[in-house]
């Protein structure tokens, strides 16, 4: 199939890159211009992504753009169904988060710098989504590191500097491992575009050891950002960043970039058949399970709200890896759909946490008593997303767990369902208490610092509106899961499987 | 590192190096080097003395750069600051000055001869320039007051002249045929003598100025 206008992909990158770079050089007081640039870029990006979605779904187009970097090595941007899944998630949530961030940071210093790096982050994330080969993905992956670090430092407190240092240490290390792995792979197999079922099978079993070592290195490299088990501890610390950063980056962009990278490596570099043959999927599954359980347990014992959410992220992102490692289409669907579902639900939770902190000064779960009377809308959103995380039907999280369960059965590993059940119980154990005391409890003490009292809305509209929007989105994704452009619908399109059906055809990779 | 161990270490390594150098030189074959090529090419150059031919024709580019080194050294010492006082006190009494009155013209004459002689025998721009410079240094040392040196522009042109003339002649080779740093056939002798003269003047002046060790004029920053 002929590749269509690759310039569209460049344009999508530029919609956030150009405003981002411009914003750096704006003066602090140029509020209107900065806001306009941010919003225009975000809206334009969403429009372009929708155009691509339609193009890929209706017309079956593929989009590709490439520049030569070195002999035999191209920088490739390509839009296939899988990349659009991640790109549309990032674009949509960027738009919402931009509104939220403008409200959240109102009146705080150094907003030009903040929004500049914020836009660079989104550019990097979208770049990862549209990367057509591993080299390109590595490039954007490192760019994401570079652009996120200043946001972790943004508050400038000693604590955030400590977090920044740790974040940098982990991600630079991960980046280096990834670089070494990608170079090695390129030496071994050349720089090839991602293809369904991978491109390495010809090298097996001749280079079996090298391929296994490479797999470990690649997973470690991406695993740092995906917060897989031994490499996760930067994530809870990075929660010192402002709420929109935690929300968009640490719940969506950064960890998802890692998870997305793992998906690409397993599906489109190695390919499921090869990965299964090499016997690397089972260890990956164990790693994912360990991370799921560990994250949930740590979340249960975290009293700080954002920290609890962060550990919950550690746990939930590994659902994606788990889905992939089940090595069947249904499990993979569950994993991929969770890429979107977890993003939307987790961003809702972070927005709510930000609203509580900004409006009432609530930082710990114990302080949430009676918050439902003061901030019913926010708590409602929190409740919806929390229930979704637990996996209560008909929320989006249920769809994930359902497909993961089906996948486990399909691959003959039914015991994984037990893991899902345990994890759900743990989820319930740490999400239900704050929800319950929020609705039914009483404030233990007066709020630390209460703002927006007596306003028509419970908090600033720019904080409330995005929160409600993403909460509704999370609800809608569950209720309308079988619609064509829903996440599940799209994931089914990726795998060429009708939603709700079994494994009549496993394409195994990206692209119809 | 303490002085003593350092000294021992350096001494030991130097001795080792000396042994190695001697043994290496011992093993080298006897060859005539480039002398055959030089002898063969002497007919195509304007000068009769092989060393001058090598310096100013075959390896003229080396010599251009070498004169550039002298000029650059002058600029470098100038950039360090001004020479406040002359390096030595003038000697009182009639003997010194009377002697110099005869010595300086003699040295100038000798220098001039050496430059001219370089075309055929031993001598050349550097030897001549050095003798000229010696007379200049004597002049500087003997003068009772601050030397009344020419204005900066004159000095600058003077030290630059040698390289500039050489470079100009070298560049002229580009349109004229023999290429960069080449002399048109038949012009060699005249051009080489021109270069030698300019070079000797510049070198002499430069050496005197290097002897002063700084700018011999005041600049804004000298206050």
């Amino acid at each position: 199939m002929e590749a269509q206008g690759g310039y569209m992909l460049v344009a999508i990158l530029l919609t956030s890159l150009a405003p981002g770079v411009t914003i750096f050089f704006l003066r602090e007081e140029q509020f209107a211009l900065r806001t306009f640039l941010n919003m225009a870029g975000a809206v334009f990006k969403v429009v372009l992504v929708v155009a691509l979605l339609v193009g890929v779904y209706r017309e079956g187009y593929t989009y590709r753009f490439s520049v030569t970097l070195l002999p035999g090595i191209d920088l490739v941007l390509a839009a296939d169904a899988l990349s659009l899944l991640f790109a549309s998630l990032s674009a949509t949530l960027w738009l919402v988060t931009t509104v939220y961030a403008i409200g959240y940071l109102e009146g705080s210093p150094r907003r030009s710098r903040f929004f500049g790096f914020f836009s660079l982050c989104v550019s990097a994330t979208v770049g990862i989504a549209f990367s057509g080969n591993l080299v390109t993905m590595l490039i954007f992956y490192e760019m994401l590191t570079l652009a996120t670090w200043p946001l972790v430092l943004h508050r400038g407190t000693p604590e955030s500097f400590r977090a920044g240092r740790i974040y940098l240490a982990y991600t630079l290390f991960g980046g280096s491992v990834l670089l070494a792995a990608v170079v090695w792979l390129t030496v071994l197999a050349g720089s090839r575009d991602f293809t369904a079922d991978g491109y390495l099978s010809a090298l097996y079993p001749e280079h079996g050891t090298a391929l296994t070592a490479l797999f470990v290195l690649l997973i470690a490299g991406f695993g740092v950002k995906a917060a897989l088990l031994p490499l996760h501890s930067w994530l809870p610390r990075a929660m010192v960043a402002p709420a929109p950063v935690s929300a968009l980056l640490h719940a969506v962009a950064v960890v998802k970039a890692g998870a997305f990278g793992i998906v690409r490596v397993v599906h489109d570099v190695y390919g499921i058949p090869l990965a299964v043959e090499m016997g690397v999927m089972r260890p990956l599954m164990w790693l994912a399970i360990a991370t799921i359980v560990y994250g949930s347990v740590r979340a249960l014992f975290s009293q700080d709200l954002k920290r609890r959410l962060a550990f919950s992220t550690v746990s939930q992102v590994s659902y994606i890896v788990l889905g992939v490692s089940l090595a069947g289409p249904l499990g993979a669907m569950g994993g991929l759909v969770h890429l979107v579902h977890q993003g939307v639900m987790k961003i809702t939770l972070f927005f709510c946490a930000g609203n509580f902190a900004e409006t009432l000064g609530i930082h710990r779960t114990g302080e949430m008593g009676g918050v439902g009377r003061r901030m019913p809308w926010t708590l409602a959103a929190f409740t919806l997303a929390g229930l979704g995380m637990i996996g209560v039907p008909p929320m989006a999280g249920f769809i994930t767990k359902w497909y993961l369960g089906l996948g486990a059965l399909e691959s003959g590993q039914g015991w994984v369902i037990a893991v899902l059940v345990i994890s759900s119980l743990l989820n319930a154990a740490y999400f239900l208490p704050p929800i319950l005391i929020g609705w039914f409890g009483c404030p233990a003490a007066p709020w630390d610092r209460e703002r927006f009292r007596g306003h028509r809305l419970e908090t600033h509209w720019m904080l409330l509106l995005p929160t409600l929007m993403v909460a509704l989105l999370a609800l809608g994704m569950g209720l309308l899961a079988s619609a064509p452009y829903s996440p599940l619908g799209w994931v089914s399109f990726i795998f060429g499987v009708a939603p709700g059906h079994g494994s009549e055809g496993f394409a195994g990779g990206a692209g119809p | 590192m303490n002085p003593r161990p350092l000294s021992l270490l350096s001494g030991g390594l130097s001795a080792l190096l000396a042994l190695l150098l001697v043994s290496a030189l011992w093993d080298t074959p006897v060859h005539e080097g480039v002398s055959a090529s030089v002898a063969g090419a002497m007919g195509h150059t304007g000068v009769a003395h092989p060393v001058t031919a090598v310096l100013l024709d075959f390896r003229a580019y080396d010599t251009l750069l070498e004169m550039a080194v002298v000029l650059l050294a002058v600029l470098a010492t100038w950039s360090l600051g001004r020479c406040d006082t002359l390096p030595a006190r003038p000697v009182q009494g009639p003997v010194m000055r009377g002697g110099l009155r005869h010595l300086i013209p003699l040295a100038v004459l000798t220098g001039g001869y050496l430059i001219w002689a370089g075309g055929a025998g031993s001598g050349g721009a550097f030897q001549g320039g050095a003798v000229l410079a010696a007379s200049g240094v004597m002049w500087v040392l003997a003068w009772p007051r601050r030397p009344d040196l020419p204005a900066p522009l004159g000095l600058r042109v003077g030290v630059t002249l040698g390289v500039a003339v050489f470079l100009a002649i070298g560049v002229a080779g580009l349109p004229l045929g023999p290429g960069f740093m080449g002399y048109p056939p038949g012009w060699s002798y005249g051009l080489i003598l021109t270069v030698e003269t300019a070079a000797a003047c510049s070198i002499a002046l430069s050496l005197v100025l290097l002897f002063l060790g700084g700018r011999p004029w005041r600049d804004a920053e000298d206050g």
Partner: protein
Amino acid sequence: MAESLHAWPFFGSGVLLFVLGLHALVTRPHLLIKVLAFNVMGSGTFMVLLSAAARGSGEPDPVPQALVITGIVVAVSATAVALALMLRLYPILGGAGLPPGPPED
């Protein structure tokens, strides 16, 4: 070179000068001595070159002679710059000895 013994003393002295200069340049802190040592090294090198030129039978090779002339002029220029610098440093250091220890800022 065994067959051209007349060049031998010159090679030997050249090498000796070179290493003597090297040793002094490395170990002596006084700048004037260092500069002199550099010149001694240079003389040794030039001597080696000239001995190589005069080794064979017949006319000495002109190329090393030209190289030595060039080398001498270059060395003189470098010496002049070094001495000028030393004169500037003299009042600052209160002498012409290079302070010991590694140069840290």
